[in-house]
């Protein structure tokens, strides 16, 4: 039986007339959190920096997939000047058409005369692809396992806890390198793991423990709450309770964890590239730092600095944004 509408309700009871204007409209958890986030100017700036990086990586990706005509800053392989040209200094250069012109490389060039700025911008694509794929893999493993362990408990919980404690007993760097070494240049079911594929696979397969633990803890806590009991009483299946009642309520934890985990992945990519386990033929920030450490002795500081600044800006923004998100979406987790 359809209930009376709001208008008819207030019409029937003249005493309630005008009351609706006094009741402020309700806000959801997300709307409330985002409103608080918008008030923090630093977090908003960080948000836009992250969006800029993601947009850049997305654009470079789209150019490659759809075969668009490449704008200048995507052509990282082009030789734009003499080898080891210093940044901000103008130089004479003969281009492909044989015309000589005065040029200036904003961030200098590398040993082959390729623009450092373009390579750094292209590195965003590699590093963000690695971090994004690794995050997706670790979420795809960690969230379902954590949910199952927290919701069903019993032997499922025991099994997953055993998996978690086994993985977290091995020092993370050792585990990551063991996976990266073993997976590198191998073929599984016809898919060859070359370059960054083995990197993000190794990161994703080893880093799900943290999010799994968090989700499990939240599920144990929320399993007893009233809304889950109500859902059970109305006859919802377990899958429905997990996916449409519990998961949306812990989604902010996933977002917060993701934004902070992203930084670790970007830094891990640098270390793996340095160990020779990363991308080999395309620029990535890790590969740039690895290449630049030998050049520093020749006073070629710009390549190293460009990659470091690129990583620094993205990490700083993500770190600050992650902290702000945590404070706004879940004040109970607040650290400071």
């Amino acid at each position, binding site marked *: 039986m359809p209930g009376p509408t709001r208008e008819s309700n207030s019409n029937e009871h003249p005493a309630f007339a005008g009351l609706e204007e006094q009741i402020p409209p309700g806000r959801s958890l997300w709307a409330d959190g985002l409103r608080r986030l918008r008030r923090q100017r630093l977090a908003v700036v960080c948000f836009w920096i992250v969006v800029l990086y993601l947009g850049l990586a997305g654009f470079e990706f789209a150019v490659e997939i759809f075969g668009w005509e490449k704008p200048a800053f995507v052509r990282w392989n082009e030789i734009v000047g003499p080898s080891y040209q210093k940044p901000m200094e103008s130089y004479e250069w003969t281009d492909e058409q044989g015309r000589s012109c005065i040029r200036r490389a904003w961030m200098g060039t590398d040993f082959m005369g390729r623009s450092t700025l373009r390579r750094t911008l292209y590195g965003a694509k590699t590093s963000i692809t690695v971090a994004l794929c690794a995050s997706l893999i670790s979420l795809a493993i960690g969230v379902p396992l954590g949910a199952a362990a927290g919701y069903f408990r019993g032997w499922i919980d025991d099994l997953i806890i055993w998996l978690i*404690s086994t993985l977290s007993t091995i020092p993370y760097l050792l585990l990551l*390198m063991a996976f990266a070494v073993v997976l590198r240049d191998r073929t599984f079911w016809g898919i060859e793991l070359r370059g960054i594929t083995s990197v993000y696979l190794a990161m994703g397969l080893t880093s799900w423990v943290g999010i799994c633990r968090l989700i499990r803890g939240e599920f144990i806590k929320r399993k007893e709450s009233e809304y889950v009991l109500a859902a059970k009483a109305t006859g919802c299946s377990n899958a429905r309770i997990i996916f449409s009642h519990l998961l949306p309520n812990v989604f902010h934890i996933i977002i917060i964890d993701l934004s902070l985990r992203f930084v670790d992945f970007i830094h891990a990519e640098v270390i793996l590239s*340095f160990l020779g386990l990363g991308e080999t033929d395309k620029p990535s920030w890790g590969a740039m*730092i690895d290449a630049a450490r030998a050049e520093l002795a020749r006073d070629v500081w710009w390549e190293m600095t460009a990659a470091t600044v690129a990583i620094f800006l993205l990490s700083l923004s993500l770190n600050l944004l992650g902290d702000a998100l945590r404070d706004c979406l879940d004040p109970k987790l607040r650290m400071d």
Partner: protein
Amino acid sequence: MTVYIFRRLLYTVPIVVGVLLLTFFLFSVVGGDISPQIAGKNADAQTIAEIRHEYGFDKPLFLSWDSQFVNHFRKALTFQFGRALDREKISEKILRGVGPSLSLTIPMFLGTLVLSLTLALLAAFVRGSWLDMVVVILCVAGMSIPYLSFIIYGQYFFAYKLGWFPILYMPEESLLTSLTLPVLIGIIAGLGGNLRFYRTVVLDEMRSDYVRTAFAKGLSTPQVLFKHVLKNALIPIITSVVLSIPYLFLGSLLLERFFGIPGLGSLMIEAIASRDFFIINAMTFIFSLLIVVFTLLTDICYAWADPRIKLE
């Protein structure tokens, strides 16, 4: 108490078995037979067959007393890891690396601990002010710079440009001259994250009731901070200290690599470069075991110190 220790010991068995299963799966099932790679590109079939036999790749994976699976467990549990690809005994290689690694990591660890704990207490003095906020942002900024950049710039400026320290580790020089720069770089690089952690621990403690009582009694801030807060904040700090001891043995992969310190980090990097699964396997097992032992010790210490802790 004896029952507790015994039961706690039993709980470590599945974890050790789990680590062994994981390494077996990783190196023997996924990694598989690497004898052609050990033999090199120009090896003939007979050499490959000999190597395959020597390392036991020709044995069945499971279902035999002499299978790779059983041998994997036997080797690990008796600590007979055999020889590395360069024919040297793995256990000797590891024992040789422990000394240099520890002489790098122990001063680094103590330095970071003392410095970040002091700074955290000082930050608690000015909590909520703009100075506190600057400290937090500096910490996050420090955490955002890649570790490699710290090392490369540090080595470049202080050793190469200014010449204050030797660029590489020299066995004939004293440890002090060789290791000062890597230790300093390690302390600076680790300061951000640690300071942030200790600041949170101290501030958590500041919110407790006993602190309010102490202030209400009219004690001064230094008295409250150093007499009351520090003592109570020591519990989570000591836990993190004890749990990071096994990692000290592991050395510092990147610092050792850059300064040529012949520790376990260098050993690990060599093993990765030559794809020596045997060394990586042995290191993974030994360090997991160390971590299991130290976690066990921490738990037992807790149970001993706090009678409320019982194992369900």
